[in-house]
């Protein structure tokens, strides 16, 4: 009963915190709300007319939504790169960052689920996918695995920070006996969500572009580069706009993680490119389309040729200690790396899988305004969720929010 009272007070206090703030904060939240409303309007059009309002067709049947979903699973998985050193390896540096990382994971997962639902043709019969109530094609369909691991990961990433914050809110220390097992599970689970998402594509013999053994490992490498890169950027913003203390060495350590992951990612990219272009076969056509265009169709060229140089540039910058330790340069490198991987693991991965089609047909895909509107709306939703979570967490961590008996 007492716990319930504390929880009620926590919710009330956090509502107070998130509705109060500087002018900048209010503007930020208003902008996000506006974008969400625009997204909802676009989605209502899509609900009304069907997915024909998107750029997808029978030839390219997954587009912007699934691209973003794939990328965001990686961002969610990246929280593990902070959780592991803090809780498992007992490296105290990350303690402050880890709550932020987990908040980011929650926001990313919310976006993932929103993107999947936005992509569904029949959201009204989504209950068919609920185990026990509907028919759950487990273990045959990788999509059911994905449903399980994503929701499980969401659960873990909500409960662990909630427990820690709940204890801190009452001015008590969180018992490591309670949350360490959860942290251990979440480390394995994070790898699982990304690997399972990769298997979703990797298991399709119909699509040679995806059907290669490197896809899963490369997903992990790129995720552990892009996710922590985003965390660094978020920490930079939090450092400058709140009194939450994040030490330089925390950011430097995360930067190290980003660097190693980006380097491994680049090695795998080279391996992939070598395989596709040294002795090109019929199966290399998708890669040809992506990098050089096929038969005059080249819609993806500007994207991929933005991504590759940015990726290389960011990795080179990060590799040199002198450059990486300069925070301005580091933030720039993280930003371009994030953009590069968003293109590469989203658009650059999903769309070419369908081009050319099974019988060599090349039909290009260009997202429509409505699709972009929904996508921006979902990103705004993620940012909104994250801001709320982070603001409450920071409030508790710096001692501003405390339970008053």
């Amino acid at each position, binding site marked *: 009963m007492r716990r319930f009272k504390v929880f009620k007070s926590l919710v009330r206090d956090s509502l107070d915190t998130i509705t109060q703030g500087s002018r900048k904060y209010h503007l930020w939240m208003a902008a996000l709300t506006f974008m969400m409303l625009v997204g909802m309007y676009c989605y209502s059009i899509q609900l009304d*007319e*069907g*997915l*024909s309002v*998107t750029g*997808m*067709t*029978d030839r390219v*049947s*997954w587009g912007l939504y699934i691209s973003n979903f794939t990328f965001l699973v990686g961002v969610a998985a990246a929280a593990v790169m902070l959780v592991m050193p803090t809780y498992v390896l007992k490296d105290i540096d990350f303690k402050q960052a880890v709550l932020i990382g987990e908040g980011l994971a929650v926001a990313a997962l919310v976006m993932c689920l929103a993107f*999947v639902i936005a*992509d*569904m*043709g*029949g959201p*009204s*019969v*989504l*209950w*068919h*996918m609920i185990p*026990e*109530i*509907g*028919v*759950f*094609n*487990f*273990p*045959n*369909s*990788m*999509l*059911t695995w994905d*449903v399980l691991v994503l929701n499980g990961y969401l659960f873990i990433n909500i409960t662990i920070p909630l427990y820690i914050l709940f204890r801190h809110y009452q001015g008590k220390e969180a018992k490591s006996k309670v949350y360490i097992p959860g942290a251990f599970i979440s480390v394995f689970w994070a790898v699982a969500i990304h690997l399972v998402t990769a298997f*979703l*594509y990797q*298991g*399709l*013999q*119909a*699509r040679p572009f995806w059907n290669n053994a490197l896809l899963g490992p490369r997903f992990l490498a790129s995720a552990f580069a892009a996710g922590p890169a985003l965390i660094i950027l978020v920490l930079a913003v939090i450092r400058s706009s709140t009194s939450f203390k994040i030490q330089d060495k925390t950011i430097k350590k995360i930067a190290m993680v980003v660097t190693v992951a980006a380097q491994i990612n680049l090695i795998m990219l080279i391996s992939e490119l070598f395989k596709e272009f040294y002795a090109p076969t019929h199966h290399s*056509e998708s890669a040809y389309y992506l990098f050089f265009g096929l038969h005059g169709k080249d819609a993806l060229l500007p994207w991929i040729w933005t991504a590759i140089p940015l990726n290389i540039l960011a990795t080179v910058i990060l590799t040199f200690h002198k450059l990486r330790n300069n925070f301005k340069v580091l933030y720039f490198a993280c930003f371009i790396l994030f953009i590069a991987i968003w293109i590469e693991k989203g658009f650059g991965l999903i769309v070419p*899988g*369908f081009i*050319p*089609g*099974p*019988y*060599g*047909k090349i039909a290009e895909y260009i997202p429509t305004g409505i699709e972009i509107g929904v996508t921006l709306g979902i990103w705004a939703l993620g940012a909104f969720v994250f801001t709320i979570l982070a603001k409450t967490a920071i409030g508790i961590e710096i001692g501003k929010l405390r339970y008053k008996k």
Partner: protein
Amino acid sequence: MSSDNKKWFSLNIGRKNQETSSSCSCGKQSGGCGGHDHEEIKHIEERKDGFEQVFDVKMNRRSAFKQLAASLAIGAGAVSTSCSMFSDDESKEKAQIDWEEQFKGNYKLMTDEEKKATVDRLVRSYQLRTGKTISMSSKNAEENVLFGYAFNISKCQGYMDCVSACVEENNQDRNSQMQYIRIHEMKDGNGFNFNESDDNYYHEVPAEGHFYMGTQCFHCDNPPCVNVCPVQATWREDDGLVVVDYDWCVGCRYCMAACPYDGRRFNWSKPEVPEEEINKNQHYLGNRLRKKGVMEKCTFCVQRSRAGKNPACVEACPTGARIFGNLLDPNSTIRWVLENKKVFRLREDLGTEPKFWYFMD
């Protein structure tokens, strides 16, 4: 779903075997032997459908509460329409049908009575909405029937009569010009080079120096689309037809990505067929009217083939390039073709085992 003599490897963890006997090892036919509770529930679920499939399962108190709460929330809206004082009997009936249709189970798991019930509801619903009567069948696969198809590449001249017959027979969306069949025009001397073929030609056929080849759903014996479906809305029937329950499909399009043969089509918007062009001889798994956001595909015209007729494409072909029949009948034409012609299939290396063969004279 699984046949015993398959030649490919598939991991069979937890896949339900259809031959499982209904009684458990303790000899009792129904529950009460303890220790088998879970199996029993599964089995009941397999046979029941409609409301029963969803609600009439043995459950403990906690899951009962959970499901009750969920259904109450969903039901409130429907109840308010169906109990409204102001609506007349017909709209009440319509609301009742819509409600039952929205929450019915997966056709694959229905008993014959439940199949008939949903078909009756659909027929009645169509009658209420348009005042016209359609006939809809829920005929199951027959014993000792396995459908197969053969395509004579030397005979096909690219007239595309099959394509238009298919569209008319199967009530496909006219707005998006959905077609199950694609005819590929290929250059002589290049072999089967799909990359340089054209499946969207508008000129007089047969064009000089070209040959033609049709593709559609190949009704694989090991269909990749069936495995990936998260809700088992698509499956292989006992007579080999790979079908879709349009009402169970959630529209994720995973099957579309998994199909190596471009055999599946999606309703990107509400499919429209002019009232006078609707084929009223329908089958639940075949050409009944679809809705937006669901998958569909060639079913070898299940409404015709299970009634002993040839699919519309076979009947419409003016050159006799298309041959359809029962692979298990040693006297069928299709068997004669397989035994006497040099037949081949597309992308056999993928292990999909299509039941669609090509041959030349």
